[in-house]
Structure formats: C-alpha cells, structure tokens
C-alpha cells in the first residue's frame, strides 16, 4: 500500500507539473502577453487606451517619448504661409488612441481646434496623415514616409474633378503663380530626375538606401527601375490624403497602422537587429494644411498644390511615435489543414485565431465563409476535404436525416448598420457620429419606397416617370418625419442625386433573416409592409407589397423588386434606344458583408445612374454608363447592413436601433449585447436566439449567437482538432483585443455559461474520438480504453484516479482499465495526424516521453531490480 502510494504521489506530482506545462503551452508563452485595454469597447472598437497620446501643434514637434519637444514650433517658408498656418492651427490638438503594443490594426486619430475644411473646393484646411519609419528620437525623414501610393492614375479626385494632393513632388520656385516651396530642393537628391522644373522627395525603403523617384511604371519607360508601386500602391497604402475638419474644429479618422508585413518599405515592428532585436518603432505624421502654399501664393481653389513632404510643409508637422509588438507567430504551411466553413459573422474572429490555434503543435485550420445552404451540403458530404464543422446562427436543416451533429456556442456578435454620413454647414461640413434607425425606416429603405431609390428617381435628366402608386412623395429617407425625429441634425441633404438605400448582400442568409425579423418585430411596420399608409400617407412600393415581407417567416434576402428600367435620352452619343438601367444597376449588391462596409468607407454605395458620352464602352466605342463618383465630402450618405466585427475593423460608426416611434434607442455595445444574450431563448434544437421583439431591457435586438455545428461521426483526428478549436473558443480566444489570437472588436466575450457548454462539447468530441476510429460511433462502451491518451493534452487529465470521466450518452465511458493498446495513442501515431518533420518530432517526443515519465521512477527503483534480475540470472547459471 504505502509503496504503491508513494509511487502514485510521485507520478501525480510529475503529472501536475506536466499539466502546468501544457497549460502554459496552450496560452502560448512565446506570444506577447498583454491585457486588453478596458477602455476600448469590445463591440465598436472605439475608445482610448492607456497609451493614448495627445500632441499640440503649438508645442512643436515631439520626440520619440511622445512628451518632450524635439523642435519647438518655428517658422518655415514665407512669413505669410507660417502666419496663415499659425492662425488656423494654434489650438490644434491631436489624440492618437493607442501608441504602444501596436500590430496591424486601426487606431483612432481625433483632433480639436482644427481649421474647418471648405468642402466646396477642398483648397486646404485639412490634415494629411501618413506612417513613416525613422530610428532617430527626433523623428522621421520625409524620405521614410509611405506617401504617394495613389500614383498619377488613381489619385483621388476632389470636388470639380481636381486631383487631391497625394504626391511626393512639386514645383520649384518661382512657381509661375501656382505655388511652390522656396525651401525645395533641399539638396541635389530632391531634384526630380525626369522633370527639371520639379522637386521630388524620393522614397527610401527602410534598410536599403535606394532612392525611388518614380510613382509608377507608366511614366518611366524603363521597366527595371523600381517605383513606389514596388513598395506600396493604391490598394495597399494607408495614407490619408484628406482628413477633413468639421465646422466645430474637430475631426476623426480611423488610421490603419501597418507592420512590416503590410508595408515592406517601412518595416515597422520588424526585428531591429541594430537595436538589439526589439521591434522597430515607427511614426504617425500629421501635416496640417492651410490656405497658402509655402511661397505664400494662394491655393487658388485647386486643392493644395505642394507635397506635405516638401521641406516647409514637413517642418509644420505633428508626429507621434508608435511602438510595435514583435511580429506575431505564424503557422507552418506544409501540413494538412482542417477545413471549417460557415457564416461570415465569424470571419474576422477566425482570422485572428488561426495563427494562435496552430502554435504548440496545434492543427492548422482553413476557414471558408460559405452560403448558409452550403453548411448542410458540406456537413453531409463524404468527399475528401469536406468540412466537419460549420458556423451557424440557426440549426442546420438537412434534406434527409443528415449526420449526427452537436452544437457549441463560439461567438456573440451583432448585425450593424454602418454609416458614413456628413452634413453641410455652409461651405463647411460636420461628420455625423451618431444616427438612429427604426424598423419602419429600414423597411422603407429596403423596399424602394422613396422616390430616390427607384432607378433614376433622384435626379433629373433622364426619362424617369414618377409611378402612380407614389401618393406621398418623399425623395429620400432624410425627408421622412421618422428620420427627422430620430436624427434632427441630419435633416437636410444637398445634392441627393443618387439612391440613399443601404448597401446589402445578394445572398440568402440567416443574417438577412435576422434583419427582417427585427423589421417584423413591430406590428405597425408589418402592416405598413402590408400596404397600410404611414401617418404622412406614404405607402410601400406595391412590387414589394406583393412579396408579403411583413408576414412571418422573415425573408432571407433583400430583393430589388421594382421593375422600373429608366432610359437616358440625352448625351452625344446617347445610349442605345432600348438600353436602360434597372434597380439592380442602380442599387447594386455587395459581394459580402465586408465588401458592403468597404463601399461605405469609400462613400460609394450606389451603382449606375447616368450616361457618360465621353466614357469608353468595353468594345472601345464612345459613350458608356456612368457610376457617379463617390459622394463628396460634406455630402456623404452611405450606409450598409454588415457585421459588428466588420464595422469595427473599418472604423465605421454604427446606427442605434430604436423603435419606430423613436423610443428605446440601443447602440451595439458590450452592455447591450450582454443584455440581449441574457434574454435569449433556446429554439427547438437548443440553440439560443435573441428575439428582436424581446431583446431584454437595453438589449441590442440584432445580437447574434454563433454556434459551431460539428458532425460527430468524423475520424478521431478531426474530432480532436475540432475539440481543440472549441477549447480555444471557450478559453484563450475570448480575451478582447486586436492581437493575434485575441477576440477582435465586434465580438462580445462569451458569457461563462456558454463557455461551459462549449467546453463540455469539446469533451464529448474527445470522448467520441477516444472511443475509436469508427466514423459511426457505437453507443455501447467498453471496446477500447479511455480517452486518457489524447494527444492534444488537457483532455486526458485524470481527475483523481478511478472515477470515470463523465461521459455523454454517445461516448464511450473512459474509466475502463487499459487492457489493450490505448486507441487514442495508436490513432495519434498514424501518419494522418502529422506530416513532415512533425512525425519525427513525435518520435523524439515518444522517446523523451518514455524517458521523462518513467525515468524518475525507474531511476529510483530499477537498478536494484536489475541487480536482482542479474543476480538471479547468475544464480541460475
């Protein structure tokens, strides 16, 4: 007894140590360990952090400590140029929401005391923001800034078709009346080699010394010369050519901080070998632009005409040092990947989790966001590469019986109405940060019931005929009394020439169904959709009335049901006589939720609405359909139905959801999602769902609870990998933050009771896996040993000896004696589980395991036993 006990104690101690080691391994001691900042709202992603930094223009240029001044504010350029700037920006204060521990993420850059931007001409009075490298504590050189990425061809346009200033070059003085910088060129290396009348601030990619003077290949001719496009271009750059200041002197942009992975030419966060291997810091540079060029000539209503990198402009910059996390871990590529599929709602979460899941020998997963209908097809498929896990917000329906499934909650998130709206105040603008919408307003906007949402209905100059059914004509949603009551500050809109309908996806999905469910949660809205006029006499478009969108069950798509096809008869050449544009042309669909948000961010959610006689048809003939340019600053009105994680990712504000009479407005936030989850009810399959009609007090009605639907008759390796994913979903994956492996903004950390369910499901899967490799698990137990030998660790932790691990009905009890080779161990040793070098690591681990686990015991006890054996052998001889 005693000796057995002593062995057991010793082994138990060893096991405990190993468990600790395993636990450590799971939380990834290699990765950065930083608590998420509490002040950031986990749903919107907005808010400040402990490392937020505020700088004042009048104080001068700060050093890399973001506190002391490297260069006091002083004159550059002509006197009038500096005085103009000082008058406009002496009170400018810029706050950057996070400056430490950065990775590839968005940070909020907000300011007060700016000069209101004149949005009629955009002739100055805005900020230009960029990211630069530079190791000197006094700041970066202009040669180290990612600027000019839009090149010549894709330069954004301002009002009146003026190209916005996004270049690294400008005119040498005298500037022939169009502005110039008397301080340029600062040296021969600022001469533009291809135009003697210009200076050019070359880009020097980090650690190269190479000076690049070409925007892109089209102007060069010699294709072997590197261009800016070699390092960054319009798709990849994070520069902000125009950050407009509202009438009240404030402004805000979400700036995409890039690491060396996204911006190779900057190398931010890369290991700085000269700096002792620490991650390389970088800078956020803000150049305020006034009304005058550095030579004091007027900008002349043509946008700013000198580069922010020119010496006089550069001298007036603000800068904030950015401190990066080490480049995060990545996954091994040459392994089998465990495919998982499902709703786009979890896409950003999976992108964050994937590089963490594969650490410490974990599986590599691939996530493909698929149409909801594909879930059933894939889960039932035996084709190679089919997914055994699908993320869903509702039970998977199979045409026939379907495979056995278990469900585990993995994410709580919300469907959001992301928007980019600003209003005009004279020639200035105010960016709107808060709007509210109710079911009736959204129903109206989704049914082409406003005149401006019918093809061509917003503008003149085409053959649009106002339909008979339109009794009370409202041009746009902004003209609706319901809108005015909720959003008095967005009561008028100038130049509404295109649709103001929200951008939606084209698919059939549970996400869309949830939105219609919310719309149907109000009896008044239901009857409006059924044909009852609102208080002002406005009725639903009869083409939508026919679809009975007010009757349950809620629809799962957003139709463009109005058959109007509008002709354009003007223009030379005019469009072909029988050509016209339809509702789908005019209110186009987005490819997916992310695509919808990207369109909102660009202020462009509308489609074809005109004809451009100067356009070129695909066949190369004159005249083609025109998409109006993105709505100009001060006139932007774009919104889309998307996911909270997507709106947070793109730094877009989201609408509060109100009842149609304006009561009970709820913003998507940690508190409102928590309240909704608490009020969620289980459906027939046991999946919790938030009823938009009863989301609980202060609950966000479009809160979504995403489940992993797991097929249980998979091979053991697949089940174990799935269990590992669920364990992560119930544990480390629920820490809010922007780092790899964390729960990105837009998701509410799972409440404890949901996590417990997920952990239990993981355990069930491991038990099924341990029960044997048979894909159709037998409910009878006893054919093999227990789940002790699980290769993923954690699962096999014994709970004190002989008491059996609680088993689900379908799983094999795992407390039996080991009377034959443990199935789990055998399964874990097949080449299916690990390929390449990992196999041999496994061998090494087996050897090490044998030595490590038995060694202590054997060292104590075996030598005498061996002696005895030897003695006995000798005696026998």
């Amino acid at each position: 007894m005693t000796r057995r006990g002593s062995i057991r104690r010793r082994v138990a101690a060893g096991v405990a140590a190993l468990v600790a080691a395993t636990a450590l391994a799971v939380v990834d001691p290699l990765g950065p360990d930083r608590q998420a900042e509490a002040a950031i709202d986990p749903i919107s992603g907005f808010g400040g952090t402990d490392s937020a930094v505020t700088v004042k223009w009048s104080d001068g240029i700060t050093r890399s400590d973001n506190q002391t001044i490297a260069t006091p504010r002083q004159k550059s350029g002509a006197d009038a140029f500096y005085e103009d700037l000082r008058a406009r920006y002496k009170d400018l204060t810029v706050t950057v929401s996070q400056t430490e521990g950065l990775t590839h993420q968005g940070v909020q850059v907000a300011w007060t005391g700016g000069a209101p931007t004149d949005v009629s001409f955009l002739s100055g009075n805005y900020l230009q923001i960029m990211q630069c490298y530079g190791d000197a504590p006094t700041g970066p050189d202009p040669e180290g800034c990612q600027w000019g990425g839009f090149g010549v061809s894709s330069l954004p346009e301002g009002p009146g078709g003026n190209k916005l200033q996004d270049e690294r070059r400008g005119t040498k003085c005298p500037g022939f009346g169009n502005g110039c910088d008397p301080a340029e060129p600062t040296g021969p290396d600022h001469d533009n080699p291809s135009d003697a009348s210009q200076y050019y601030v070359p880009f020097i990619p980090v650690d190269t010394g190479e000076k690049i003077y070409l925007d892109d290949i089209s102007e060069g001719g010699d294709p072997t010369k590197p261009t800016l496009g070699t390092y960054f271009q319009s798709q990849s750059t994070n520069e902000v050519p125009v950050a407009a200041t509202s009438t009240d002197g404030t402004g805000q942009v979400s700036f995409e901080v890039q690491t060396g992975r996204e911006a190779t030419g900057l190398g931010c966060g890369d290991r700085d070998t000269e700096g002792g291997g620490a991650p390389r810091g970088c800078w956020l540079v803000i150049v305020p632009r006034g009304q005058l060029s550095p030579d004091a000539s007027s900008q002349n209503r043509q946008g700013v005409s000198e580069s922010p990198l020119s010496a006089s402009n550069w001298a007036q910059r603000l800068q904030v040092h950015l401190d990066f996390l080490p480049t995060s871990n990545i996954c091994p590529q040459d392994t089998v990947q465990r495919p998982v599929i499902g709703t786009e709602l979890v896409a950003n979460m999976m992108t964050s989790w994937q590089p963490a899941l594969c650490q410490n020998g974990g599986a590599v997963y691939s996530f493909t966001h698929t149409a909801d209908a594909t879930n059933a097809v894939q889960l039932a498929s035996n084709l190679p590469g089919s997914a055994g896990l699908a993320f869903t917000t509702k039970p998977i329906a199979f045409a026939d019986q379907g495979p056995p499934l278990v469900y585990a909650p993995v994410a709580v998130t919300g469907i959001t109405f992301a928007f980019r709206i600003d209003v005009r105040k004279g020639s200035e603008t105010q960016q709107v940060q808060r709007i509210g919408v109710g079911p009736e307003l959204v129903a109206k906007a989704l049914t082409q019931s406003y005149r401006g949402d019918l093809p061509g209905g917003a503008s003149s100059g085409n053959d649009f005929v106002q339909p008979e059914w339109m009794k009370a004509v409202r041009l746009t949603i902004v003209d609706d009394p319901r809108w005015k009551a909720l959003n008095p500050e967005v009561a008028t809109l100038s130049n509404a020439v295109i649709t103001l309908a929200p951008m939606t996806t084209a698919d059939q999905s549970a996400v869309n169904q949830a939105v219609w469910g919310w719309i149907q949660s109000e009896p008044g809205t239901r009857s409006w959709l059924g044909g009852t006029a609102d208080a002002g006499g406005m009725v639903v478009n009869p083409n939508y009335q026919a679809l009975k969108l007010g009757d349950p069950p809620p629809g799962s798509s957003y139709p463009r049901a109005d058959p109007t096809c509008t002709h354009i008869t003007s223009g030379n050449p005019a469009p072909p006589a029988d050509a016209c544009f339809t509702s789908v042309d005019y209110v186009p669909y987005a490819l997916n939720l992310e695509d919808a948000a990207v369109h909102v961010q660009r202020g462009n959610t509308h489609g074809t609405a005109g004809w451009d006689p100067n356009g070129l048809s695909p066949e190369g003939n004159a005249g083609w359909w025109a998409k109006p340019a993105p709505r100009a600053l001060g006139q932007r009105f774009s919104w889309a139905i998307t996911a909270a994680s997507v709106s947070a990712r793109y730094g877009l504000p989201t609408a509060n959801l109100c009842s149609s009479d304006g009561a009970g407005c709820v913003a998507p936030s940690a508190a409102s999602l928590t309240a909704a989850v608490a009020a969620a009810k289980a459906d027939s399959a046991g999946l919790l769902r938030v009823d938009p009609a009863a989301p609980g007090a202060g609950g966000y009605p479009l809160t979504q609870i995403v489940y992993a639907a797991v097929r249980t008759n998979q091979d053991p390796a697949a089940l174990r990998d799935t269990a590992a994913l669920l364990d992560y979903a119930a544990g480390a994956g629920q820490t809010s933050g922007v780092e790899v492996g964390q729960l990105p903004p837009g998701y509410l950390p799972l409440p404890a009771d949901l996590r417990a369910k997920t952990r239990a499901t993981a355990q069930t899967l491991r038990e099924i896996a341990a029960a044997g490799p048979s894909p159709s698990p037998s409910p009878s137990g006893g054919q093999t040993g227990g789940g002790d030998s699980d290769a993923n660790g954690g699962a096999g932790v014994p709970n004190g000896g002989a008491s059996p691990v609680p088993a689900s009905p379908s799983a094999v009890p795992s407390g039996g004696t080991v009377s034959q080779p443990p199935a789990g161990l055998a399964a874990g040793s097949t080449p299916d589980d690990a390929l390449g070098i990992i196999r041999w690591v496994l061998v090494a681990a087996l050897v090490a395991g044998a030595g490590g686990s038995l060694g202590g015991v054997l060292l104590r006890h075996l030598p005498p036993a061996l002696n005895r054996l030897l003695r006995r052998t000798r005696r026998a001889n």
Partner: protein
Amino acid sequence: MTTTSRPGRPRRWLAVACTLVLATGAGVLVRPPAALAYVTINGAGSTWSQNAVDSWRRNVAQFGMTVNYAGTGSSDGRNQFRSGTVDWAASDIPYGIKDGNNLDLPPTQAHPFAYMPVTAGGTTFMYNLKIGNQRVTNLRLSGTTIARIFTGGITMWNDAAIKEDNPGLRSRLPAIRIVPVVRSEGSGSTAQLTQWMVGTQRSIWNAYCAAARRNPCTQTSVYPIVPGRGMVAQAGDLGVAGYVAQPQANGAIGYVQYSYAIQAGFPVVKMLNNGGYYTEPTAGHVAVSLLKARINQNKNDPNVYLTQDLSQVYTNTDPRTYPLSGYSYMILPVSLNAPMTTAKGETLADFGKYALCQGQTQVNALGYSALPINLVQAGFDQLRKIPGAKVGNIVIRSCNNPTFSTDGTNTLAKTDPKPPDCDKKGPTQCATGTAGAKNQETPVNNGTGGPGGGGPGGGNTGGPSTNPSGTPDPGSNPIAQQGACDPDTQDCGQAGGNTGDPNVFGQPVSAEAGLGGGFRIVLMVLAGVLLLALGLGPPLIAQAGARRRQRRSDDFTMPGGPA
C-alpha cells in the same frame, strides 16, 4: 473486483503521464516557423474566381502573407498587370482576344508573364422561372437551345425546343418571355460562353455575330448586343445573379459562376452533354469534364503555354460531363521588372502554391471544383519561374490536397457518381432541384408511365464500404465498382450512383511512401516498448521494491513484519 482495478490505476496514471509528456514535448519542440520575408502583394481581376481568391487570401494571413485583391473583372486585371499597377492578375481568359476596337496585347516585353491554372468550375445558367407559384428548379436544356436563347432565336419559355428538353414540365411551361441576361463589361464568363458557342454552335453564333456587326466572329469577352432581342446586360457575376434573382425577373436566365447561384439560392440549368445526360457542374462533374481538357504545352511560347483547349470537354461523351467546364488563370510575373521584387516573388509563389494545394480543398464548398493533379503540376512549373520563388518548396509531396489519390489521379473524378436515370435524355425528368435550390423539388408529370417524381433514386447513398483508401477497388468492392466510372472508357457500370465511400476521409497522399512505412514501424515499436514498460514496469517495480524491503527487513526487523 476492487483488487483487479487497483493495479491498473498506476498504469493508467503512467499512460496519462506519458501522453502528456508526448503532447507537451511536441508542443515545446515544434517551434513555430521563423517569420518569412513575406511582403504585401497586390492583384486584381476575375470576379469568376473572386470567391475562391478571397477565401485563400483570408487563410494565408495565418502564414504571414498579406495578399490584396480587387475583383474588377478579368479584362481590368489583364490591363492592370500590363500597366504594372498590380503584381499579379486573375483572368478567365488569356491575353489576345480581340473585342471590337480593343486590342488586348500581351505585355511580353514590359511584364513577361506565365499563365497558371487556378480555379476550375462551371459556367452555369441561373434562371428564374415559375409555373404558377411554383419555382422551377429542375430545368434542362440542350446546347443548341441554350445557344438559341442567348442569340434571341428562342424567345418564349413554352417553345417546343424547351418542351422537348423537359418532358416532365412539357404541358405546364408558361407562355412568358425569356430574358437572357449577359455581362455588360469585358468578362471571362462571356469569353468562356462564346468560345463554347464558336466551338459547338457555330452557325447560330455566326448569324448572331453578323447581326451584331461583329467582324471577325470569334470568341469575345464583351457580349455583342443586338438591339431589339430583349437582352439585358449587367455588370459582374453579382449583377447578373442579382438581376435574375429578382421576383419581377420571372423568365430571366443569365450565365454566372456556379457559386453565385448557390449564394443566391437559385437553380441552374442542367445542360445536355454528348453522353446523353443533363448535368449541373458539381465539383465531381467538372473534374470529370476537365480530364478531357487539353493544355497547350508549347513551353516556348508564353502567350499560349498552359492555355486551355476545351474542345474535347464540350464533346466529352462521359455521362457525367458538364460541357461548359473550364478553368481560370493566375497571370504571374516572371521578371523583376517593376513592381516586382524577389521578396514579392517569394510571397507570390507561396501564395500560388497554397492556392494550388490546400486552397483547392476549400473551393468545393464555394461551388468550384478542385483542379486535377495534372494541372496542379503544370501550375507548379509556372510558379518556379517567378523570380524569388523558393523552388524547393514547390512539390506535390507537400501539397496536402486530399483530392490527389496515390496514383496521381483526381479522386473527385474517380468517385463522381453517374447521373441518375431520370437525367437521361428521354421521357422522364428528375424532380430534384439544382445549385442553390437543391432542396426544392419541382413536381413533374413523366407521362409515359415512368417513375413519377424522378429523383436520383436511392442507389446513390453508397455502400458501407470498408475500403479506407478513398479509391474504389474494382476487384473487391462491387458497390464501388458499380458507381465508379472509368474516365477513359466512360464506363459507369449500371444504373444508380455512388456518392462515395462514407468511410473516406480526406487522406492526403504523401509521396514519401517509404517514410510513411518506416515511420509507422518506428512508432509501433516505440509504442510497443512503452506499453511493455507500462505493463511490466509497475509489477516489476513493485516486486523489486518488495524484495528490497524484505531484504532490509532481514537486516533490521520491522515491527509487524513484512507486509
């Protein structure tokens, strides 16, 4: 009872300990790979491929790759690559197809390039047709009928030609206009469709082309519109699918990549093949069809090398063929002309490899078909030409694509079931739906006493085969034999299909066959040794301990004596 369980306990503890050591050891020893010198790469092009490309881009982020892509259409992708504003492009067709006034010259000098096959799939005809309030989901059409619809030759849904293709719907096809929906901008889908028309429906196409005043009348990526024939043009696959899906679009039919129909929840036309069956482009059917794709192997001419010749796909007599199957390309840079660098080349080659290997396993869920192994290998040859490519990594051995079987054939094609009898040209018609409307049946009147309701029958659920390899063994497994088809002889056995072995799970093939065997032996031996140690160790130890204590007790008499 209790005594029998007691000795087991320490052993179980030890087993646990060993396993934990094993797991932990593996965790500590398998270090994450050092960060590679990946840099951001930018691409643009095909909307046909976009759903797949977007999925790959998202998944390679975990390997440290940043890949940007703008789905602006194949023509724009080729233009951008030609002008050097993107590093790579995706296009459904090669350079050089002339559309009206546009010359699409390959940038052979400024941006030398190579074509790599990247996504395979079917160009489908998504339609919106109702009989009364009942959505039709099982429509079937012959190639000639399709060609006549898209040239304005057939204008009504109750046309005799459509009735003939659909005996089960014959009496009920509505007298409403057909609205053919085509792509408005230059697109690869249009090029695929018109290439097929040129190849198989030449007289119909030539007449239409002439009416559209196109000369020469060839394959085109911009669909010619003849005024007055009721065509509607829409931008992008999304625009075409979006138009067709509208409730007011009853009667519309447009061509889109299969995945767009699935997302929209709409059916697609089952198209008649030369084997006499009406099929839809499932992953398996596309794989079967593409076995007949001929690939231009003239390595000396980069303008045509690896471009596709689908003429034998169109006429393939395998009953599982979907005639409008094809594949799309990635256009890869093979020089260091700006904006390329070797670092970009390394990233692009690894991204391309991911797309060809693991990436192909995801595409079935999106409505594409995994590329056959011969195209993957040909694609590898192209990837190796990218300056900066880590050539040693680009091998099938590390591909980890479970659709490649051990003998180098395409598992999808091998296991693809034959279409059910009711899909055969003849008096009966299946009731089952297609694409995004799979679960919606359409009632059929198969008048001549045939099995009303059709359906693929019960024969396609597959037998409880025990063959674990995923390749049906014709010798020992009669069920598999019945369902499997020989791609060369088109012999698909008897009626009824086989959706494959339910025991088959993705089993990637390792070319290191010897290693696998050796490895297994090593592991078995090790595991055996461990088990032996676990089994024999504790009793031995216990015995040894008892002996030692006894010996001690001989020297020093213990109170109570030995236990």
